[in-house]
Structure formats: C-alpha cells, structure tokens
C-alpha cells in the first residue's frame, strides 16, 4: 500500500472530478455556458501529456547513458501514453470547439500546433516499427524521442503565444486568468490535473509491465 498510494489518490481524485465537475456550480459565461465543465477534462489531458512525455524523455536519456531493455520499454510506453492523452485532448477540444466556436476544427495556431506535435510522435511509432534489430531500434528511437520533444514543445507552448488565436492561452494572454478567477472551479481543476497526470503514469506503468512480461514469455519460449 505504501508504494501504491498514488494510484488510490488518482482514483479518488478522478471520482471527485467526475462528480464535482459535473455537479458543482460554475460561473455563467456567454457562449461557454455549461460547456465550461469540459475544462476539467480537456486541459488536464495536456498537462498529463506533457508530464508523461517529460518522463519518456527522461527514460530515453537514461537509456542512452546505460542501455537496458527496461528503460527502452518505459520510454516507449510513456510516449505511447502521451500520444493517447494527446489524442483524447484533441478529441475533447474538438467537441468543445464544435459547441463554442461552431466548427469541429478551426485554423488556429494552437490546434494546428497540437496536431503537428501528434504527427511528430506518430512518426516516432513509425520509426520504431521500421527496425528489426532490437538494440538499434532502442537506441535510435531514444535519440529521436529526445529530438522530437525538443521540437514539439515549442509547438505547444511558444509558437501559439506569438500569434492571435481563439484559443485561450494564445496571443500573449495566459491561459487560466480568465476562467480560474472563480475559486469554485479551482477546487476541481487542480485535483483534475493531478488526477489525470497520475492516471497517465499508472497507464504507462501497466503497459510497461505488460510488455516486459511479454518479453519474458517470449524469451522463455525461445529457451
């Protein structure tokens, strides 16, 4: 239990977010109306994605220092979880955009940046699948992972802030000042960020365990 407390915390926080996020009072804003509740689901996805991708880069750096298959699997599964979070973030954002801006997709720097960053990480998966030698695959995808992180992060956090955009957090204005003035929302939003981030790490851990076990089974069959 002492090692797994954060998983329980994640479950509790997410249950709280699901209940409180849908039932607690929210400020009445024009256009946004009740859809503002999506803040608890859409925004934490990106937080979770960023943290899990940082973890992935950390494992890749460690892999390059001391190559072990475990670190490679951890980096790979973390990146995959990050991609999953990113795709869900794009999907929730798209639904939100439909009901507030009137279109599933708008030509907006933040949206396009996020989509391209997903393409960059999609290329990571393609790269992994095009090697047959395991060690070479691990080393080269670790290199690409670090490189991809360095080019993808400006797409999320630097470029959209330079241009005008419909999306909050662009055109020089910080993302949260407008909505988080309401302290009721903060009570749900911060737990949501922590909960979804912990869930991402949990997912990555589970996926890594599964692929480690698969590898062990495979090695046993060979022996």
């Amino acid at each position: 239990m002492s090692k797994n407390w954060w998983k329980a915390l994640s479950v509790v926080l997410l249950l709280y977010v699901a209940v409180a996020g849908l039932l607690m009072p929210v400020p009445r804003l024009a256009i946004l109306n009740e859809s503002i509740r999506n803040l608890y689901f859409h925004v934490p996805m990106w937080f979770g994605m960023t943290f899990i991708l940082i973890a992935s880069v950390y494992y890749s750096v460690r892999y390059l220092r001391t190559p072990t298959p475990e670190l490679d699997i951890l980096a790979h599964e973390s990146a995959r979880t990050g991609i999953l979070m990113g795709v869900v973030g794009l999907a929730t954002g798209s639904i939100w955009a439909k009901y507030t801006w009137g279109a599933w997709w708008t030509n907006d720097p933040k949206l396009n940046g996020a989509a391209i960053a997903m393409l960059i990480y999609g290329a990571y998966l393609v790269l992994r699948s095009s090697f047959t030698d395991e060690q070479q695959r691990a080393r080269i995808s670790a290199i690409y992972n670090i490189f991809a992180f360095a080019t993808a992060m400006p797409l999320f956090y630097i470029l959209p802030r330079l241009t005008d955009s419909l999306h909050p957090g662009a055109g020089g204005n910080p993302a949260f000042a407008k909505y988080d003035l309401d302290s009721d929302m903060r009570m749900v939003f911060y737990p949501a960020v922590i909960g979804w981030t912990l869930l991402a790490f949990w997912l990555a851990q589970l996926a890594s365990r599964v692929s480690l076990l698969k590898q062990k089974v495979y090695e046993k069959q060979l022996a």
Partner: protein
Amino acid sequence: MQKDFRLEWRQRAALNGMLLYVGSTVFVCYLSFSLRGGQLPAPAWNALFWIVLLFSAVNAVAKGFLQESRGRMLYYYTVVRPQAVILAKIGYNALLLLGLALVAFGLYAVVLGNPVQNVPLFVGNVVLGAVGFASTLTLVSGIAAKATNSSTLMAVLGFPLMVPMLLLLIKVSKNALDGLEFDASQSSLLTLVALNMIVGAVSYLLFPFLWRS
C-alpha cells in the same frame, strides 16, 4: 574539422543534380501558373516558394548520409570526433541549402515576378531557414539512414519536425513581402534563432550516440 569539411565538399556530385532539380521545379511552377495568366498573388507566391525550398531541402540533405558508404563511415569514425562530423555536415548542408535557396529565389523572381519589398529581411530569413533546415534534417537523415525503408522515413520524420520552423519562416517572409518594418518581425526572428539553436544543440549532443552503432 576543416579537413572534414573539405571531404564533404569534394563529393559534391549531387550539387549539379540539385540545382537542376530546383530549376525544373520552379519552371514547372511557372508553367502551371502561367496558364491562368497574370501575376501570382503574394501569399500564393510565398507559400509556393517555401514548398519548393522544403522539398529540395529534403532531397538535398537526404543524400548526405544515405549515399555514404559503410567503409567511409568507418574511416571517419577512426579519424575524427563525432561532434566534428555533425558540425561539418550541418555546416556543409547549410551552405548547400543556402546556395540552392538563393538560386531558387533568383530563378523564381525572374519567371514569376518579385513582389518582395524588403529584400534584406527576406534574404536574412532565407539564411535562417537554410541553417534551420540543415540542422534538423542532418540528424533526421542520420537516423533514417540506419533504418530499412529510409527514403519514406526521411519524409515522415522530417516534415513534421520542420513545421514549427516553416510556420515562422513563412510568417516572416510574408512580412518581408509586404515591406513591413523590421520591428514587426523581430520577435518571430528571435524565436527562429532560438529554435535553430535548440535544434542545433540537440543534434550536437545526440549525434555521438547515433554514430556509435
């Protein structure tokens, strides 16, 4: 380092091919647009120019590692440090792309008209673009050369990585086309320089690991 640079320079057989590639691409653009008659609108001019540059950059840089024979790689490995190799490759590719870009710009201006109002800004932007493309694509081509289906991989890995740079470049060159003051594009230019430095530093750090295999 300088010697390595010269080695690169010596195998410039691809250069003429690349020049021809750029020339014919520009000419095809010219022919297909001249059917409509009249001047190309500035945004289309701009977009087309960068697309031509993008494709010729990918083709030019891909040759860098893919055509390298295994024996020569081994020879480099024993003679010089990996950092020197990547710096030389980036430098060579940057110069190559710069030459290509200027030739393309010249040809392009001749056949499709030259709506650029602020030429120094435009050329400075092209220089930054060449350096940025070179530092991104050199490492990517190094990665792609290790894989089995390298030419597809080169495009798949390279294009998304270059998009942030390309967006900024297109924005700045649009400003140059419209003849805006330097102040209007200063922040974008600074971001571009910063992006170039990030990408260059990351390739410098990562290349030794790639080299070892």
